[in-house]
């Protein structure tokens, strides 16, 4: 394919070379603009799948600027999104069959919601990007459609003051864009609401469990050392014999805190995440204890104190992935729970020392 060199509106895009996701160009009032298809390639779809199921992807970006879908003109809708390729792909796919402009802000490859929280999907970047692509010359509509979650970073009245453009907040999810537009730019209550369904939560579980499993070897090492340490040295047999139940309890806490609590979130009594995690931790530890029935009373104390608490701490981390926990609430939880965690750890260590002293018959 011959390389296309274009006379493009200044600032429309930095790269004159065709981006891989562009199909061709369309003529606009300000010059040529890359046209992108609404159909996603297999690679795009795989990218979406990965973004939804695994961790956030670094460097999955598109070039900020203006793009065309279909054959838009001066009266066409202008949809604003982030330059995280996932966001861009979801938006262009949602506009299938339409002719519209897509204005991509430079959010450093971060999705709308997070970028709006940080302020990169924000008033200043929006105003700058609008002027770079000469949106005022391109559009007779003087209206732009933003994703609703962008409102966290963008102030509609300030944009209007600076550019004369009216900001309309579209639905939370791009998939509702067409319905929103055909309803005369009206969103239903459902389109406006951020849900947190069981599917959403289950998709997040691996991201909670994996970081904890990475920390698990440290815990396992300490537990094995603590049990294996004998006056005559570190004994493998006592390490395994005494340590095994603790290794199981540790895994149990990860499971109840990082998987069970998120999955059953609305069904666990108490609103506090620390409390929810602790409740699930008690249940989990209790069930596991029936597997290891012969327990020394001191070890029993440690088990009941430490493992539900670990589950509680792990569950508290899930506040970062929810769509409904606020900072004041998390602050409040941390203020009460962190001292409890510290004391529980200290007491557990003390009890373990007492246990070892008795075991070694030092006293």
């Amino acid at each position, binding site marked *: 394919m011959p390389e296309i060199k274009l006379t493009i509106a200044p600032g429309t895009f930095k790269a004159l070379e065709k981006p891989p996701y562009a199909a061709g160009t369309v003529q606009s009032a300000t010059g040529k603009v890359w046209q992108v298809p609404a159909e996603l390639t297999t690679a795009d779809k795989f990218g979406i799948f990965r*973004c*939804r*199921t695994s*961790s*956030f*992807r*670094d460097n999955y970006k598109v070039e900020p600027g203006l793009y065309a879908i279909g054959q838009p003109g001066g009266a066409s809708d202008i949809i604003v999104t982030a330059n*995280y390729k*996932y*966001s861009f792909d979801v938006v262009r796919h949602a506009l299938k069959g339409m002719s519209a402009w897509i204005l991509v802000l430079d959010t450093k490859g*971060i*999705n709308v*919601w*997070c970028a709006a*929280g*940080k302020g990169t999907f924000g008033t200043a970047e929006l105003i700058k990007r609008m002027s770079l692509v000469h949106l005022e010359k391109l559009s007779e509509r003087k209206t732009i459609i933003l994703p*609703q*979650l962008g*409102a*966290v*970073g*963008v*102030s*509609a*009245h300030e944009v209007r003051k600076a550019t004369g453009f009216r900001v309309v*907040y579209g639905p939370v999810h791009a998939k509702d864009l067409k319905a929103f537009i055909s309803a005369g730019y009206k*969103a239903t*209550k459902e389109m*406006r*609401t*951020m849900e*947190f369904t069981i599917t*959403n939560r289950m*998709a*997040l579980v691996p*991201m909670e469990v994996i*970081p904890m499993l990475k920390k698990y070897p440290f815990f396992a090492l300490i537990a094995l050392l603590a049990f294996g340490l004998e006056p005559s040295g570190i004994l493998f047999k006592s390490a395994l014999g005494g340590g095994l139940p603790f290794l199981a309890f540790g895994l149990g806490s990860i499971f109840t805190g990082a998987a069970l609590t998120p999955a059953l*979130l*609305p069904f666990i009594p108490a*609103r*506090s*995440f620390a409390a929810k995690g602790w409740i699930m931790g008690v249940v989990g530890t209790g069930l596991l204890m029936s597997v290891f029935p012969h327990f020394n009373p001191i070890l029993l104390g440690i088990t009941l104190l430490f493992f539900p608490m670990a589950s509680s701490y792990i569950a*508290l*981390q899930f*506040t*970062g*992935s*929810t*769509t*409904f*926990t*606020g*900072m*004041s*609430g*998390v*602050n*409040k*939880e*941390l203020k009460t729970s962190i001292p409890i965690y510290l004391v529980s750890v200290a007491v557990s260590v003390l009890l373990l020392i007492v246990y070892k002293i008795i075991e070694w018959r030092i006293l």
Partner: protein
Amino acid sequence: MKYLSKVASLKLNAQKCVGCGMCLEVCPHNVLRMEGRKAVIADLDGCMECGACMTNCAFGAITVNKGVGCAAAIINSILYGGEPSCDCSGGKNGDSCC
């Protein structure tokens, strides 16, 4: 799903409110409602303190202590200083958070 009760820092000054309805449009949790020609806080416990309503009220009628409701972010800000922010790019899905 609701988080802790009566802790959200959201405040609405009815005197400044002109009833334009913008805050209702941007709130992702239906926290606000129109009552007559004023917006009112209908569900304080539903507020996640995202700040969208405050940023988009042209009349300065809403204040909220905007921030991230994420334990790891807040713990990091206590340990290392600075505002809590969701900079932990190794996590969270692209759909709802970072």
